[in-house]
């Protein structure tokens, strides 16, 4: 339409300097040592941290599955409501997302503490105290709490496209509740599930705040390791870059896995 490619030039320059170049520098640092010589040692050394990587993947996967299970019915119920009600309910789902996630996580700190609110309430009934903060479970809880809306919203979007008559047709044709669920509802919400998984898994696997605030010092994740290399005590840019590179590969693998379900849905959520 408008023939003015030149208008894009400021952005293209910006893109090359501040998107492409930084990633190339990460790759450069990952494959060099402190004096700038080529080495594979940083990548090899990651093996020493394999337990941290395994923990990150495991906790993020747990959080993703829990989010999916919790969010699926919510997405379904919301998509069946009258349009005016849907609007209000969506607002309610999104409202906590607008609170800064540090404050949301801080709220859980005061709930889960050893002499925190949950333990105090349980104490009235003669239960506990339970050790909840600084456990892996608390980290998973923090991830679920922070990222649950990211699962509900794409599921809801996918399910609004499912016509009620399709579900009724399945039931009329003799499908059981389970059959309707596995053969109709689940496949039709596939794109939403795929998007939701990415949107929960990626921030969960790379977080360093949730693990630090709710996991104490004993539940380090990949994000914590990277942060320590750049701003913390370890202070080793080469090692940190190698870890970042591996994290990027993990994320790319996860995304290529989920995007095989549906290509266009990412755009729909944007």
């Amino acid at each position, binding site marked *: *339409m*408008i*023939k*003015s*490619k*030149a*208008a*894009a030039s*400021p*952005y*293209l320059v910006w*893109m090359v*300097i*501040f*998107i*492409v*170049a*930084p*990633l190339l*520098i*990460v790759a450069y640092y990952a494959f060099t040592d402190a004096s700038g010589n080529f080495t594979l040692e940083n990548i090899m050394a990651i093996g020493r941290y394999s337990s941290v990587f395994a923990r990150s993947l495991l906790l993020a996967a747990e959080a993703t599955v829990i989010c999916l299970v919790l969010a699926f019915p*919510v997405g379904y*119920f919301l998509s069946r409501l009258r349009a005016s009600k849907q609007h209000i309910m969506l*607002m*309610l789902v999104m*409202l*906590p997302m*607008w*609170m*800064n*996630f*540090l*404050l*949301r996580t*801080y*709220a859980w*700190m*005061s*709930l889960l*503490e050893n*002499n925190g*609110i949950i333990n105090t309430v349980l104490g009235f009934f003669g239960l506990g105290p339970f050790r909840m903060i600084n456990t892996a479970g608390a980290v998973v809880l923090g991830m679920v*709490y922070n990222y*649950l809306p990211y699962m509900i919203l794409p599921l809801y979007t996918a399910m609004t496209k499912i016509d009620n008559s399709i579900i009724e047709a399945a039931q009329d044709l003799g499908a059981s509740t389970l059959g309707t669920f596995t053969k109709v509802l689940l496949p039709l919400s596939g794109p939403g599930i795929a998007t939701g998984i990415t949107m929960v898994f*990626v*921030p969960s*696997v*790379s977080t*360093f*705040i949730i693990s630090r*605030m709710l996991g104490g010092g004993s539940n380090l994740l990949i*994000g914590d390791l*990277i942060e320590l290399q*750049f701003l913390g005590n370890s202070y080793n840019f080469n090692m940190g870059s190698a870890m*970042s590179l591996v*994290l*990027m590969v993990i*994320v790319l693998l996860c*995304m290529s896995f989920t995007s095989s379900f549906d290509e266009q849905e990412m755009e729909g959520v*944007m």
Partner: protein
Amino acid sequence: MKSRHLRLLQRTYVVLIFCFMYLPILVLAVFSFNESKSRTVFTGFTLDWYKSLFTNRMILSALALSLAVALVSAVVATVVGTMATVGISAMGRKSQLFINNISYMPVVNPEIITGVSLMLLFVFLQNWASKFDVLPDAFFGLPTLLIAHITFNLPYVIFNVSPKLRQMDSRIYEAALDLGCTPRQAFFKAVLPELTPAILSAFLICLTYSIDDFIISYFNCGTLQTLPIAIYSMTRKKVSPEINALSTIMFLVILSIILISNALDSRRYKREQGLGKAGEGR
């Protein structure tokens, strides 16, 4: 009968999920009025934490910095991003796809990677520039913070505005040219007004992302403190009910913005409906 039980079950479930989502925020708010510093026992009502919050220099200057960075980065990102959208739309399919894929990177990459990679670039630039003394001494701080925020805001502008530009009827632009506009006039008088809603919403998205961002700022702010970074340093200090007061205020501000925009929306909707009916009556 069965369906009524089912509906009750559904309602209970949704209510429980909303309790899970809102209970922590409610607890924060309740304890912002607590007289003692205890986070578990409510000893009495006070507004002291709100008073001390508003005399807290650290918080106030952090808030000012956050607003300034958000405003500047959103303006720059919106202008550069809108220009980019127009320019990219004039390109061939392959270049479009290539540029879009690169633009997606800050969106799909974990934030920590974007933050760390920019930090490495800035360190690299600083080391390089120190030989020639071309960069200001305070390079790590406001300049890096602004660059980082503009960088993560730009893709959101492009992905918000470009669908609108694609949907737009290209004949509007051509008609403007036929009626004697120069290409520049045609753009500013015919195309830009069509894009304005998309550009505005992109601008608002940039503002909120920028005010809310912690991770990318954390790696690129030097010694400066934006509001999220100030909040982070407060959470490290364990007991500080000021943070509860701050959360409550932020929640109320967000809630009122949403309620107001909702009310405006529904009023406009009703007015349009009303106009439609009046039109029918005639």
